[in-house]
């Protein structure tokens, strides 16, 4: 499948190219164009997969089905829009002397590399490579988090690195155990770690081993998903890095890590035949949602605030997949989509807001609507959307998740609802003061990129009111795969 080659090749080569030319004035556009091409490749791949169904490629090294192809498209799309947003954003940063030429090179090439690792993690068929790719994603972003070289950013990057490194190491142990189970179940050598084979043979895998393996994998990848109490790196990393990176971290990395967890869950369910994996995920999800909701109230940094909100939503989605079943999985996938879109849109708006105010401190950002209505309304509407107010897609997803929970795990719903209410009060109170009131912000040298923000929000709005039939079918297929 040539699309796959393009999909993975473009960002890889782009990374190499930008590593040399990345400091030129036109580099941001180049970056955006590359991402755009990647997105086109992703679309082509999607079309192909929808037409011909799940496929493996390059002697089973890659495997694409409805589940990951939809994440591939989403990833490529957000990668593209984020690059668009990054164009004016990084220019401003550069004009303000916050980053130098080297940093720009690093930023652009790492951006492409990060995209590459994401796509690799999504498309690979080998659980080992999946691990490698996720570790690679950490490595690609860790230097970007500390791009500004401020003490805070260094600290954030360090924590990000160590915690995710340790987590991922546990995941590796899990992978090894998985390999053990698989090889005992008759898989020979290299093929034993191939998802397709594992999935085929999941019935014969030794339950006790798989159980332990799943624990390691869950804790490992869960660290990257940001499940409490393994989430501690996340707010720091999101808050201190440049905003485009925060956007892709929140919008993509978490999704991909969750994708890994879900793949593992499928195997675990198959092997154990119990609901253990699901229960663990539900437990993590619930704890995450409740804790993060209470964290939200104390934030003073705009990006940190939304980082916590990402944690909360990841908890929600994890809970949904933990419950399992057609509707819950459907809702989980939908929630992944809308959360990525909305949250990245919010980060775009928040990034420009912070640039305008010259600070990320919430108390110093005031009256955005007066200075630039686009950013102000973008932030406001995005916030309302992410807080789960209709008619946005997030509400649709949360509606389905909550109602499924009411039907199947009624005990959990009060916690979720209280958390939702607390989160709403916390986030909205802060955003309102930033958007409204007397302006304290100054105009930017470059026009803010309002387009990506509103494109995302419009998509989310549409998804809240109407889910196109083929998209729904697509989700359903993926949901049925997750089981």
């Amino acid at each position, binding site marked *: 499948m040539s699309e796959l080659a393009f999909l993975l090749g473009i960002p890889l080569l782009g990374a190499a190219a930008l590593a040399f030319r990345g400091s030129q004035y036109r580099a941001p556009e180049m970056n955006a164009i590359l991402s755009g091409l990647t997105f086109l490749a992703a679309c082509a791949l999607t079309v192909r997969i929808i037409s011909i169904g799940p496929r493996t490629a390059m002697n089973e090294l890659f495997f694409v089905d409805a589940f990951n192809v939809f994440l591939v498209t989403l990833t490529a799309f957000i990668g593209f829009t984020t690059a668009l947003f990054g164009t004016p954003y990084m220019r401003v940063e550069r004009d303000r002397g916050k980053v130098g030429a080297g940093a720009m090179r690093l930023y652009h090439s790492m951006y492409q590399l990060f995209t590459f690792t994401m796509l690799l993690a999504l498309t690979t068929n080998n659980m080992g490579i999946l*691990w490698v790719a996720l570790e690679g994603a950490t490595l690609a972003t860790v230097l970007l988090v500390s791009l500004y*070289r401020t003490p805070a950013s*260094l600290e954030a990057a360090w924590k990000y690195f160590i915690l995710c490194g340790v987590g991922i*190491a546990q995941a590796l142990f899990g992978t090894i155990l998985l390999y053990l189970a698989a*090889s005992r179940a008759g898989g020979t*050598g290299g093929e034993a770690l191939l998802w397709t084979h594992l999935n085929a043979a999941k019935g014969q895998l030794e339950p006790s081993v798989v159980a332990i393996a799943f624990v390691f994998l869950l804790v490992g990848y869960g660290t990257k998903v940001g499940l409490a109490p393994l989430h501690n790196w996340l707010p720091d990393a999101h808050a201190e890095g440049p905003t485009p990176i925060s956007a892709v971290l929140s919008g993509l990395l978490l999704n991909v890590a969750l994708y890994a967890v879900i793949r593992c869950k499928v195997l675990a369910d198959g092997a154990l035949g119990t609901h253990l994996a699901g229960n663990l995920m539900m437990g993590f999800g619930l704890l995450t949602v409740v804790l993060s909701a209470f964290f939200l109230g104390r934030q003073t940094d705009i990006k940190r605030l939304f980082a916590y909100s990402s944690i909360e939503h990841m908890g929600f989605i994890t809970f949904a997949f933990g419950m399992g079943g057609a509707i819950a999985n459907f809702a989980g996938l939908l929630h992944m989509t809308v959360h990525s879109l909305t949250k990245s849109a919010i980060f775009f708006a928040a990034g420009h807001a912070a640039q305008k105010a010259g600070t990320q401190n919430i108390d110093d950002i005031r009256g955005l609507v007066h200075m630039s209505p686009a950013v102000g309304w973008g932030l406001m509407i995005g916030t309302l959307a992410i807080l789960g107010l209709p008619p946005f897609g997030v509400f649709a997803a949360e509606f389905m998740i909550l109602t499924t929970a009411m039907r199947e795990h009624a005990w959990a719903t009060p916690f979720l609802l209280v958390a939702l209410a607390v989160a709403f009060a916390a986030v909205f109170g802060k955003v309102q003061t930033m958007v409204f009131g007397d302006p304290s912000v100054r105009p930017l040298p470059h026009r803010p990129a309002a387009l990506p923000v509103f494109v995302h929000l419009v998509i989310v709005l549409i998804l809240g009111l109407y889910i196109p039939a083929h998209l729904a079918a697509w989700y359903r297929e993926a949901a049925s795969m997750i089981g």
Partner: protein
Amino acid sequence: MIVTAQAINFIAALLLLVAFAMLSQRRIRALVNLFAVQGVLLTASTLLTASGTGQTHLYYSAALTLILKVFVLPLILHRLVRRLQLTGDVEMLINTATTMLVGIVLVIVAFNLALPISEFAGTITRGTLGIALACVLLAFLMMITRRKAVAQVIGFLSMENGLFFAATSITYGMPMVVELGIGLDVLVGTFVFGVFFFRIRETFDSLDIHHLERLRER
């Protein structure tokens, strides 16, 4: 066959010993050396397993280990230590005795965790899984107890070693492509660490990570 198994078990025991040594070791240079020793032991055990079982790809991974974990990484670390003049002790958060006690507890936990798995595994080296797991946990503990960035990194790397050892011991190593990938990641990771040391150093003029406790909820 039996001989190799015994030899491997012996090496495994040595590994555990080294792990404890690292846990208690206060001097950075010595820590790096111990890490190198760990690498040597790993290589040896991998070679033994390879010869004992005829798993040819294990030779490659043994070579990989030798290059990466015995020469490259220790060299990088040594150069870093020299460049950053990281002499002197690494003070710990908890005193050595306590750390040791906790370590022993961890070993016990690791063993009875590994028991069912190693029963299930069919390899000749399965008995060593417990030790591998113990190494991982001990490295984890080391990362927790140390306050110098370098020490944490070494802990991280030795955790990698433990994992590697586990892989060889229960499944005769991972598929080659995965091994390569892991190796690459570890290598890059170390470089990145290096970069970090310099940045941290130039920002805080010390590698003591208690400088890195600013970002918190108030």
